């Protein structure tokens, strides 16, 4: 079965059309990268798929594992197996990661009709996934993202992904704000958690460098709300050398 099939998706933000007929198909086991200049609609794509209020779908369809994704509430999308990694993870004072993630994991399990994790089971799982991202468990006892550096926030996103164990991860600029070591750790974390025959990843990024660690099967160029070019990993290298403008214009010509 197809993991995600986006067909001619159109979406507005504040009544302004941002996505203008975007189509993309992702199969299980595949890693896709979407690259593109600022303002192309990359983050809008992520938020629209995540169901963020204010991102209004005006046309097209999205099928996620046989369900109409656009009909689902954000928490139902999560329970169905979608994970959205935020470019700017939100700080939530007063709520610890451990409490939040245990409630989230159990809410998802409940949504799928599965047994809740006990406190002990959850902590074991959290410790294992934090270890993958070289994150100390003590950090997960702190309030969600409060006082975390940019790199720590992104690593914490990956720990959440590990704990929630999604089918499809849409990672919005996970590489922004990372130093070289953190980039490698996050890249390896994505591979460890998501590289599996029944999982898939959509990486949204500006730069080629994350793709050194997470090798994509397909690279798409998004410009002005549409995918204008698709290729293999070599396309990302070409973009890095020649810039978006050259590649986008060549397509238009």
């Amino acid at each position, binding site marked *: 079965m197809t993991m995600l099939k986006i067909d001619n998706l159109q979406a507005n933000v504040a009544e302004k059309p941002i996505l203008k007929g975007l189509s993309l198909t992702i199969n299980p086991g595949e890693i896709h990268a979407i690259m593109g200049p600022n303002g192309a609609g990359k983050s809008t794509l992520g938020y629209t798929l995540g169901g963020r209020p204010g991102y209004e779908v005006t046309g097209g369809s999205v099928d996620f594992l046989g369900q109409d994704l656009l009909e689902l509430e954000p928490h139902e999308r*999560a329970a169905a197996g979608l994970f959205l990694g935020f470019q700017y993870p*939100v700080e*939530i004072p*007063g*709520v610890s990661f451990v409490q939040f993630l245990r409630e989230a994991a159990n809410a*998802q399990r409940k949504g799928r009709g599965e047994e809740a994790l006990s406190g002990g089971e959850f902590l074991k799982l959290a410790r294992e996934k934090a270890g993958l991202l070289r994150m100390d468990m003590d950090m997960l006892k702190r309030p969600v993202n409060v006082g975390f550096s940019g790199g720590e926030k992104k690593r914490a996103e990956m720990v959440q992904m590990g704990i*929630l164990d999604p089918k499809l991860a849409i990672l919005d600029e996970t590489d922004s704000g990372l130093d070289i070591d953190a980039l490698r750790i996050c890249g390896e974390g994505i591979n460890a958690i998501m590289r599996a025959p029944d999982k898939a990843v959509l990486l949204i990024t500006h730069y080629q460098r994350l793709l050194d660690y997470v090798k994509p099967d397909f690279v798409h160029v998004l410009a002005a709300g549409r995918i204008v070019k698709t290729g293999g990993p070599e396309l990302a290298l070409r973009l890095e050398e020649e810039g978006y403008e050259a590649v986008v214009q060549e397509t238009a010509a």
Partner: protein
Amino acid sequence: MSEVAALPTRKHEDFRYSDIDALAGVWPIAREEIVVADGGEESLQIVEDGAEAVARHLVISLGKGAKFDLRVLSAGPVYGRIAVDVRLAEGADFTLGAAQLATGSETLEVVTEVTHAGLNATSHQIVRSALAGHSVGTYLGRIAVERGADGTDAEQSVRAMLLDRTATANARPELEIYADDVKAAHGCAVGELDANGLFYLMSRGLTPPEAKRLMLQAFIAEAFTGAPGEAELSEAAIARLEQIL
């Protein structure tokens, strides 16, 4: 606050936002006197979780270096009023942590008058309200610093979350200072739950009420931090939040 014999009207400052009809049912309000001797330490926890109207008026006198820790959870009454008058002697310390969690057409109010009468006394008031439906949550807080009460440190932090656009929060901090070298910080804010934060929590699988409850739990936790009965208060507050969301 002076004794009011007749049922007040809304023209009376301290009853400006009261539900006068409900107040009539519990009028007159008995004064409950509490005296903490020099150097003494006491605490009191008030949890109003019944549906009946309730009104209390505490009059607290703190001796030199005395401490009093008062925590209030208003979670259920159709009308709930807690009035507290505190008088602090030299070096005394008063803490108030209150949470008002209301829905329907409930009216809750915390009315305080904290008088710093001696040198170097400290007071901290934290009030958090989460208001749904057509409920009204009010905080009227007066701080009086008497002549000669130098070194006073008085703090008021008042925040309200409106869970529906039909709910109302009133906050009126008032300062009357007749001394020098006084620290009197007050902050008031009325707002709504952060939409970004809610979406973040929901994108991880929490249902909308679960996400709201988690954020509100954190919001009101500040009122109970460090209380002797912190765990019990938090548990009662969570149970109430689940009802009003």
